[in-house]
């Protein structure tokens, strides 16, 4: 005799549980946490180098930099002036997960942090599925990529709050169209905030720094 019994139970992965724990911890400490994602080569590390340079004397930054192999990005961030920098070498995983972040945080005194940047592995697919407890996902894309990027990676652009378009100094050298890129991204997520920057010549960076500053000031941690 077969019987169907209702269960109606939500399935949460282990990652979701750890991420929820992290989110609560960050909230209690008043820390802003940004999960920076992009395809490989869009400029995540360079953007963070510039950000450290601009904000390190005013605010306490912590950075976690993940890659499949090497600690190159973390080393660059230290050389740029980052005082709290932790590398994560996944050894194979194509994304960072909450457990890796939790482990990294064991050696960081969160009472001494205003803003935590997590530089994810260069990948627009898998990181969309792994909550790290962040306040927001910031997607970086560049003008040397296709302007249909948002349509090809909709899950990531849907989950993101911010899109930073980098390498605007190279506009015109490819078929990338800024208006198309914004329109495509807005089709996926009408609430996205946009920044257009060039890490190379500095255009747009002040607006980015200003936005980060307002996030920190509003968090009431100061």
């Amino acid at each position, binding site marked *: *005799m077969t019987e169907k019994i209702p269960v*109606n139970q939500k*399935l949460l992965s*282990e990652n979701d549980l750890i991420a929820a724990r992290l989110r609560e911890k960050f909230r209690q400490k008043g820390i802003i946490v940004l999960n920076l994602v992009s395809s490989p080569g869009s400029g995540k590390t360079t953007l963070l180098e510039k950000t450290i340079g601009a904000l390190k004397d005013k605010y306490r930054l912590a950075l976690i930099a993940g890659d499949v192999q090497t600690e190159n990005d973390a080393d660059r961030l230290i050389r740029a002036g980052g005082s709290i920098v932790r590398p994560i070498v996944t050894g194979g995983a194509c994304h960072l997960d909450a457990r890796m972040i939790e482990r990294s945080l064991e050696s960081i005194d969160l009472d001494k942090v205003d803003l935590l940047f997590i530089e994810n592995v260069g990948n627009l697919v898998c990181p969309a599925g792994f909550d790290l407890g962040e306040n927001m996902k910031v997607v970086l894309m560049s003008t040397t990529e296709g302007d249909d990027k948002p*349509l090809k990676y909709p*899950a990531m652009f849907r989950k993101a709050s911010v899109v930073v378009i980098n390498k605007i100094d190279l506009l015109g050298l490819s078929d990338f169209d800024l208006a198309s890129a914004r329109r495509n991204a807005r*089709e996926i997520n*009408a609430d996205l905030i946009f920044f257009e920057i060039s890490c190379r010549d500095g255009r747009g960076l002040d607006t980015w720094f200003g936005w980060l500053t307002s996030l920190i000031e509003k968090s009431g941690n100061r």
Partner: protein
Amino acid sequence: MHELGIAESILNAIRLKSGELAGASITAVGLRIGVLSNIVDESLRFAFEVISKDTEFAGIKLDIENCPVLIECLDCGKRNTVVEYRFSCEGCGSGRVKVIQGYELEIAYMEIESGFPERRSPN
């Protein structure tokens, strides 16, 4: 994308429920999976097969109900399904929409095969 973790959660739920039942076995699990959960049915079935293989729960069927993305327009109130992640109202074209279905990831039911009419109550 993290089908293995979800498969493990399903197996744990089965283990727990199975402990509450006497003389009955679970033959199928009904799942509600929304498109926005980014879980691929085939990958989930495969992951579940792999982790349940040498256990007493090998062979349990996964019945998957895929829930499409439904949005409600905050400007004109119209509801429509979302195709290809284009989140805009079919009525007025507004991007100000609320997702009312699509993120589901849950066990809806379990099918029990029993030879006996009574079962131990969960306590």
